[in-house]
């Protein structure tokens, strides 16, 4: 246990050393989320750290069940009350995890908004689409007497409100129609009065985007927004997200399992596996030099147009959330796994380019190489293959060779076993 504490101290110290950390819009650190279940507690998210700068698009990638959506729901405080949350989620220097539901409501939909995966069930079937968007505006942008009326919150609000909306709706309705126009919904005035079942999947997602940007949020969480759509519509929706992001200067947390989508839209990427972030890097860097065997496998599973290559699907399955291995969760599926991978989850190692020497750590009384955060390239990986010292992991510059080695099996220079 002692080395864990040392690692922790080292990390905090290195963080303090950063004299001018970049202004973060969202800073998640060491977030863990545990749900009670009949088979005992299930840790859906473990020690996730992630930050987003204003206006930036960060991809959160992983298979289903890797904890991406739970991470997103935690940011907005949408998890069920029985969930145990540890760590910190800071948004604009405010700690979100300690906020009450009332306080969070001020932020939800206004400063942070969210687009969900299932377009079919994201809109309420008994309310007009325009109403569902304008109510968000009325909630957050209310000028006296123009907000949510008492009538609207009453049980009979729905029945009494006719399609021709009274005056206090008009302003929010006008804005809604403008938003519809902005997101490319044809005949916006008429469409706003229609019900969700009259919309196609792509139109619904456009409406959801209109809803999400209606209060010009600082952060937009897009949880697999294109998964349910076909490819041509997907491209349109991605373009639209890109456009509105540039126009409103919104940061985007883009959750997906699709590396192709990541490549298209994200500035930086964090790869999640079984509730943990295993690698993070700028998008170009990650695609050029994927380090974690899981990332490599994910990239290998993208079909390419150039023939000659066979697809390499990843064998095995995500570990059972109630019975996770103590070490690296990817260990059982990893072609390069060594005995020490099963012992415990490796800390975060910086990845440097091949010609840049690794920093030499002082006073190495530890059996674990020193992790380092906020390194210049921003590329870091939780994998013993890239550890930097003390005989545990190979002291070498990880290069593309690793990737090939990882594909074939254990690297020749494997020094991972003690």
């Amino acid at each position: 246990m002692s080395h864990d504490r040392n690692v922790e101290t080292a990390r905090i110290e290195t963080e303090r050393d950063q004299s001018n950390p970049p202004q973060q819009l969202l800073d998640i650190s060491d977030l863990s989320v545990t749900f009670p279940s009949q088979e005992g507690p299930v840790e859906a998210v473990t020690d996730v750290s992630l930050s987003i700068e204003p206006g930036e698009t960060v991809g959160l990638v992983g298979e289903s069940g890797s904890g991406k959506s739970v991470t997103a729901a935690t940011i907005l405080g949408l998890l069920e009350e029985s969930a145990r949350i540890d760590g910190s989620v800071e948004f604009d220097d405010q700690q979100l995890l300690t906020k009450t539901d009332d306080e969070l409501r001020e932020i939800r939909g206004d400063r942070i908004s969210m687009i969900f995966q299932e377009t079919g069930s994201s809109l309420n079937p008994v309310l007009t689409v325009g109403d569902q968007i304008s109510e968000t505006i009325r909630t957050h942008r209310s000028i006296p007497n123009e907000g949510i009326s008492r009538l609207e919150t009453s049980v009979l609000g729905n029945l009494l409100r006719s399609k021709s909306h009274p005056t206090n709706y008009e302003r929010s309705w006008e804005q809604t129609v403008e938003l519809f126009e902005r997101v490319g919904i044809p005949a916006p005035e008429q469409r706003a009065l229609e019900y969700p079942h009259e919309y196609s999947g792509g139109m619904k997602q456009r409406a959801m985007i209109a809803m999400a940007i209606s209060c010009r949020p600082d952060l937009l969480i897009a949880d697999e927004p294109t998964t349910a759509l076909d490819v041509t519509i997907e491209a349109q929706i991605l373009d639209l997200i890109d456009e509105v992001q540039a126009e409103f200067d919104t940061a985007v947390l883009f959750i997906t399992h699709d590396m192709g989508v990541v490549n298209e839209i994200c500035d930086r990427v964090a790869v999640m596996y079984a509730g943990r972030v295993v690698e993070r890097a700028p998008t170009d860097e990650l695609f050029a030099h994927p380090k974690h065997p899981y990332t490599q496998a994910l990239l290998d599973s993208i079909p390419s147009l150039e023939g000659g290559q066979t697809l390499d699907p990843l064998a095995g399955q995500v570990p059972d959330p109630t019975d996770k291995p103590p070490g690296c969760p990817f260990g059982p599926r990893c072609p390069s796994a060594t005995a020490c991978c099963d012992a415990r989850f490796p800390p975060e190692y910086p990845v440097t380019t091949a010609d840049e020497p690794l920093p030499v750590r002082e006073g190495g009384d530890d059996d674990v190489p020193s992790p380092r955060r906020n390194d210049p390239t921003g590329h870091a990986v939780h994998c013993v293959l890239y550890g930097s010292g003390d005989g545990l992991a190979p002291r070498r510059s990880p290069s593309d060779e690793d990737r090939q080695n990882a594909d074939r099996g254990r690297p020749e220079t494997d020094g991972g076993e003690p």
Partner: protein
Amino acid sequence: MKRYVVKRIAQYVPVMFGVTLIAFLLINVAGGDPVRTMLGTEASEEQVQMIREDLGLDQPLYVRYFDWLGDVLSGDLGTSIMYGQPVSDLIVQTLPVTFWLAGGALLVSIFIGIPAGIVSATRRNTKFDSGATIAAYSGIAIPNFFLGILLILVFAEYLRVLPASGFVSPLADPIQGIRHLILPWIALGTAQAAIVMRYMRSSLLEVMDQQYVEVARSKGLVPALIQNKHSIMNALIPTVTIIGINLGYLLGGSIVIEEIFALPGFGRLALNGVLNRDFLILQGVLLVTAFLFTTVNFVVDILYTYLDPRIRYE
């Protein structure tokens, strides 16, 4: 919307036609000869034959059916052998009593069942929820005649605050009328309220699990808006169905409750018809019950269109 209503009316007509056919045939296949019942065992064969011809009972079945249907459509349901009065008059006399009883019991079921269901669902697994669930199952499990007798014992016998039996039209004397109806309403409405409560609770729980409710939360809407505007409307759709079915049964007359509280309603008329083998009363009761049942369901279907826009545009 118009097309939907027209479509529903188009379905309504054949159903009613089928009901008349069944009502007619049921009486004809039922055992017993009404003429002999009328004349008694002493009557001669000629007398029987004469009455048969007189009543048109010697005609083939389909002729009799259309004759009868013509009479029914013009409001003539025949004359009751037992009461010596036109059946239509008997129905007109007894139906208002049942309307008052059913209407009040329905209101009891709605005003107790829906709020209790909502509170139970929104405070799931709290003391209120468990208490309401136990009460609901007791309400369903206790037979209404037992509850009726219990209510009479407590409120009419011991406390002497409410009358035990009889009917006064609330139109003639509102206070006495309602006083006479309170106990029957509770006796009849309790089980209905319990059913409505269970339905409302489970359908609201289902709705609160839907993604659009999570979306509503993610938009920062106030809880009252999420509950009332986004959840309850959706949860009411299946609940309205069960309320409609309940009302259909209530209008058919609650024989037991009408007997216990001595209410001269439709259910008692039906009971007397059965006990005295008065087929014309039975036929009339059957027709009116079927008519009310289908009409209530028709109204419920129209009501749906206000709750669920998906039906409106079908």
